[in-house]
């Protein structure tokens, strides 16, 4: 629309929005799907045999720009070693009043011991509570982050604890894109790499969910993915929601 009728453009737009579904969610009850690379609270991973990955090298503490990590290593007790190799992380503390979730510790770690989950909802009533120790950080025997009593979890939120790490190719070299350079995790095994830009994305394997796909109705028509456009898009969306025995993909 152009010319003097342009005045009514705003009225038209706001009226159209009456019929559109809201973009916002009722937050504590519903949560938005998070990006796989979201930086949340840390976990200390374990090998598939249950050994801890941390070797107490303090590289994470050295890389930390805000000095929120405190690590002390100790020689493994010979009769019951905590980690394979010489040393293990005896003390591991992260102060979440300081942490900025930059993930530099994840990049610095030589054994992929420390990664970040997608959980970001912290609340403390006490400064001492903000310091997470090994008791909170090390994954449980199933390989999932420990469910701390004050944390509000939803399905799938505790998965994908190393999205950012798996997105990074070794040395930033594009020819290593999609090459696994990390060890297996307890409970999860060797996790799939995030598909790079040069290959076809396998979003299901890596747990990638595009917000653009989830909220396609609020996009400009040109930004909507091709398979979600028009009548065909409506059909495919409906098919996704249907159970499998009716021909749905779920």
């Amino acid at each position, binding site marked *: 629309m152009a010319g003097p009728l342009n005045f009514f453009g*705003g*009225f038209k*737009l*706001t*009226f159209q*929005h*009456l019929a*559109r*579904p*809201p*973009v*916002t*969610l*009722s937050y504590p009850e519903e949560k938005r799907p998070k990006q796989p690379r979201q930086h949340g609270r840390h976990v200390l991973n374990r090998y598939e045999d249950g050994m801890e990955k941390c070797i107490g090298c303090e590289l994470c503490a050295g890389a930390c720009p805000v000095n929120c990590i405190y690590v002390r290593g100790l020689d493994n007790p010979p009769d019951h070693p905590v980690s394979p190799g010489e040393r293990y992380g005896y003390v591991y503390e992260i102060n979440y009043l300081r942490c900025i979730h930059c993930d530099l510790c994840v990049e610095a770690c030589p054994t992929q011991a420390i990664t970040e989950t997608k959980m970001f909802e912290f609340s403390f009533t006490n400064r001492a509570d903000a310091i997470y120790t090994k008791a909170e950080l090390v994954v449980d025997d199933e390989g999932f982050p420990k469910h701390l009593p004050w944390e509000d979890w939803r399905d799938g939120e505790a998965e994908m604890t190393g999205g950012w790490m798996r997105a990074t190719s070794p040395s930033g070299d594009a020819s290593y894109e999609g090459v696994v350079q990390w060890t297996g995790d307890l409970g999860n095994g060797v996790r799939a790499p995030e598909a790079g830009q040069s290959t076809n994305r396998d979003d299901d394997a890596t747990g990638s969910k595009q917000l653009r796909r989830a909220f396609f109705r*609020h996009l400009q028509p040109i930004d909507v993915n091709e398979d979600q456009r028009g009548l065909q898009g409506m059909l495919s969306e409906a098919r996704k929601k249907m159970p499998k025995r009716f021909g749905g993909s779920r």
Partner: protein
Amino acid sequence: MNTLGTVDPLFAHGVDGWGVVLLIVAIKVLVGFGALMGSVTLMIWFERKAISDMQSRIGPQRWGPFGILQTLADGIKLFFKEDLIPAESDRFVFKLAPYLALVPAVITFAVVPVGGTLHIAGHVVMLQIANPPMGILLLLAMSGISVYGVMLAGWASGSKYPLISSVRASAQMISYEAALGITIVTIVLVTGSLSTHDIVTSQGHWIWHWNVIRLGVVPFVIFWMAITAELGRPPFDVVEADSELVGGFNTEYSSIRFALFYMAEFMNTITMSAIIVTLFFGGPAGWVPPVSHLRWVFPIVWFVLKTTIFCFCYIWFRAALPRFRYDQVMDLGWKRLIPLSLGWMLIVAGFLLRPAYGFIMAAVVMLASVVLGRAFILGQTRETGADSILPPVGPRPLPPEVLRSWSDREEE
């Protein structure tokens, strides 16, 4: 017809049934007041819900179904908050101002005819709290008083932003009152009476009988703009321009006094929607189905429906239109609306006398508008031309020797 308009039939038989008449009046007042209060509660909820839908948000949802009790929760919260009075304030005026804003909003609604007539205990009862002979003038009087509420609130706060806001409010309301008054004069000319009841009954049952069509659409548009500016609602909300003036005149208010201002604003919105419906859209006029009972309900339904549409339009304005600059508000009021409403009134007056006069008047108004338009253009070019460039801030307004003499005198 009485020159002062229709007299309320409730008092037609004198005062023989004092008790019953008084009781009926009291019930009318109570029901009217209760309905208005209830509709204010709903209006606040409706505004928040509708505007959040327009902005693709969820809006209030916690209290009651669809968050309909949100206003109640807000009211309780405000009631229990600390009531602060700034140290710099004029305490009496500061406490008085919210009532000056609220009471006119309630009183104006008294002259709005909500429905037709009822027969109760042998009395003919108009569904309208009062039908005073001066009728619609009450609207102008009350909107004049409600300026005091805003103005005194800003002044008494002893703070600069509320003061600026109150200055803006008084200037804006005075500017638009002229256009408002002239448009009302147009309606009164056609009706021949000031009474709101007569204004409604003089408009027929169908839309082509209503004043909005009968007077040409122009007076309605002018009236709507002017009344929006009177309300200080978007896009004319320079009075409480949040980005410039914190919260406007009510910045320093808290607790129940703030709630009163808030309530007054929304009550005014409803009342003015009702006034628009009364003056231009036939009030409770509308199609009544041929049923034997409860025929009096349908006019009320029509009235509520029309009023709701206008309330929705105010919400729609708020969502769709950006705020005017202060000079644009003044420009629209003085340069556009007042001449336009005046010219249209003259044309209508001419046609009422004789069509020939009307055409003559139309020609005169056309000529005047050409002259006026030329004058505006000249004025604007002078504003933006070479003459308008002022010299940079130069010497002090007072000569140095005067200043020196003053300072010398202080030393003595």
